[in-house]
């Protein structure tokens, strides 16, 4: 039997993690994500899991990577300043192919910025925050129920592709309370990690299957794997040759690129006959639903393409959208980040108008309506 609850986005994220089978959380308190840590501190031991508050943000992600190597599903949560500190380990989990999920509840930045106010200013940091060439998977929930379901989805993707998955909440979504129907957790399929199919003597820890993803052996099972942030070959040991370097970087990218249709998630709202498309995500999408309804009452044909997966960016779908609308508006709580990706995908076929807001307040439906009316 499921339950109907009134939850906050952060709470739904924590509960989604428990429902997905997470048994380990390590993190550090930071506004506006702290509730996730607080809830995990209480909930994890109830289900036999472990919570630890680490000495800093770096240690938080380091500990979850360690726990993931033992086969556990893991979560850490943070906001802007902590997201910056975690970047080096995000790169490590990417190259060493360790599944982890990181929730980043975005606030105004740079630096300490406005800790209690919403922003969507880390979208490019999510993509390019760690150094080097690497793919990224990032998801943006726009409601409390979606915080729950997308968190579970994050584990499916992270375990399947053996990489970090970023849950990019914003303060609006993280702190908003909504009704949510939560199913019985036993009815939720727990994402499974692909394990070795051969004996330890035959096993090469980074030999990928045809999907580009190598099976992963848990620590303590006799496979004696070496995990390193150095460029390595399929044995897992350092190999600095140009051939090994190219093969690794290429495989890391291609395992995501080749599965882009499987990863891509979006919602179309009243787009069928739209002349104007609003492309947005997260908390800003909430105002877009209302603005679109108001605009339609006034005879304007407006619809929304809501990004659910933001990275990898759904270029193909946005290019298709540009074929059927006359103009695209991209409202977001930053100086203009995802709008650049939209422009790239649209390739000049229709005008793409940024609607940037960076004063620490959400974009209201009325503001968005006015913007659309004045196009």
């Amino acid at each position, binding site marked *: 039997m499921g339950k109907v609850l009134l939850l906050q986005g952060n709470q739904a994220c924590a509960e989604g993690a428990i429902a997905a089978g997470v048994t380990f959380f390590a993190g550090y308190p930071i506004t506006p994500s702290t509730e996730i840590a607080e809830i995990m501190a209480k909930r994890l031991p109830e289900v036999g899991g472990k919570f630890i508050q680490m000495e800093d943000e770096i240690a938080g992600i380091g500990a979850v990577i360690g726990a993931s190597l033992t086969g556990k599903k893991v979560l850490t949560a943070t906001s802007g300043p902590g997201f910056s500190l975690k970047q080096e380990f995000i790169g490590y989990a990417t190259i060493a192919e360790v599944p982890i999920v990181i929730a980043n509840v975005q606030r105004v930045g740079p630096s300490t910025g406005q800790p209690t106010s919403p922003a969507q200013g880390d979208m490019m940091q999510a993509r390019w925050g760690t150094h080097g060439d690497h793919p990224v998977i990032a998801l943006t929930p726009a409601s409390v129920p979606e915080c729950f379901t997308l968190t579970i989805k994050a584990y499916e993707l992270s375990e399947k592709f053996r990489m970090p998955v970023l849950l990019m909440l914003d303060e609006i979504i993280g702190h908003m309370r909504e009704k949510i129907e939560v199913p019985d957790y036993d009815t939720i399929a727990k994402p499974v990690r692909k394990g070795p199919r051969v004996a330890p003597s035959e096993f090469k820890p980074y030999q990928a299957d045809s999907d580009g993803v190598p099976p992963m052996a848990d620590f303590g099972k006799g496979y*004696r794997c070496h995990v390193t942030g150095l460029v390595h070959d399929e044995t897992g040991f350092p190999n600095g040759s140009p051939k090994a370097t190219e093969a690794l970087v290429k495989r890391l990218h291609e395992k995501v690129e080749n599965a882009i249709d499987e990863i891509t998630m979006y919602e179309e709202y009243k787009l069928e006959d739209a002349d104007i498309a609003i492309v947005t995500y997260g908390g800003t999408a909430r105002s877009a639903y209302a603005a679109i309804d108001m605009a339609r009452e006034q005879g304007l044909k407006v619809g929304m393409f809501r990004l659910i997966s933001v990275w990898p960016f759904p270029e193909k779908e946005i290019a298709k959208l540009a074929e059927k609308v006359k103009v695209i508006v991209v409202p977001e709580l930053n100086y203009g980040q995802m709008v650049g990706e939209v422009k790239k995908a649209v390739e000049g076929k229709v005008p793409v108008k940024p609607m940037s807001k960076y004063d620490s307040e959400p974009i209201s439906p009325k503001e968005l309506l006015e913007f659309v009316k004045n196009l």
Partner: protein
Amino acid sequence: MEKLIKKYYRPRLPHIWCPGCGNGIVTSSIIKAIDKLGLDQDKTVIVSGIGCSSRASGYLDFDTVHSLHGRALPLATGIKLADPDLNVIVITGDGDGTAIGGNHFIHTARRNINLTVILFNNNIYGMTGGQYSPLTPTDSKATTAPYGTLERAFDVAELAKAAGATFVGRGTAFHSQMLVDVIAQGISHDGFSLIEAVTQCPIYYGRQNKKGDASTMLKTQRDNAVTVEAAKKLSAEQLEGKFTIGVLHKSEAPEYTKQYQGVIDRAQKGAK
């Protein structure tokens, strides 16, 4: 030793260490301690950071992690807490463990989680070519201190003790048999153990500071190290310029992962 090499080393030679480096001696001391205790090789994990000493993890046949610079301890904490049945041994260096990883060092000691940390102290950043570390003695030459270092060095054993470590030991590459024994005691100890392993870097520390070749540096370890027992009989004057080796500190305190099991038990009973 040949038997130990076959059993515990991966066939990955040659290693990256310079001629005369003491890291091989310290690494073999860890292996001898593991062998002496008869640890299950499949239930033992070695975690290292970045630097010369941290490359040891790649040569040893266990589940091993070569992590980030300074970050071996948080990663090891995650492994140990997630699966307390694993023996977790951490290999770090003076720069990795006490500069960039200094915060993790004190907090992991404070938590008293059952990890055994072997800190290879060669007094210098070797991998990057001879820059000073928090364990470089004052007035030493380094590539980043061409006029001599100004900073005072940590006494890493005292640091660990003050931070709450419940086992602190020190050994040297010269006194390798004793080092094996101290490491074995550290692994057996149920709590956070720190073993400082004094090792020589003739190339990047010795050469700049005219400390002689590897054998001279090993003899210096012999001449300056005083066992804990012998030190008790010496005056402060006689101990000037010396350092103690052996088990320097041992105390009892609740171990973190066992304490956490208590949290689980309480949570599952619905109590706070």
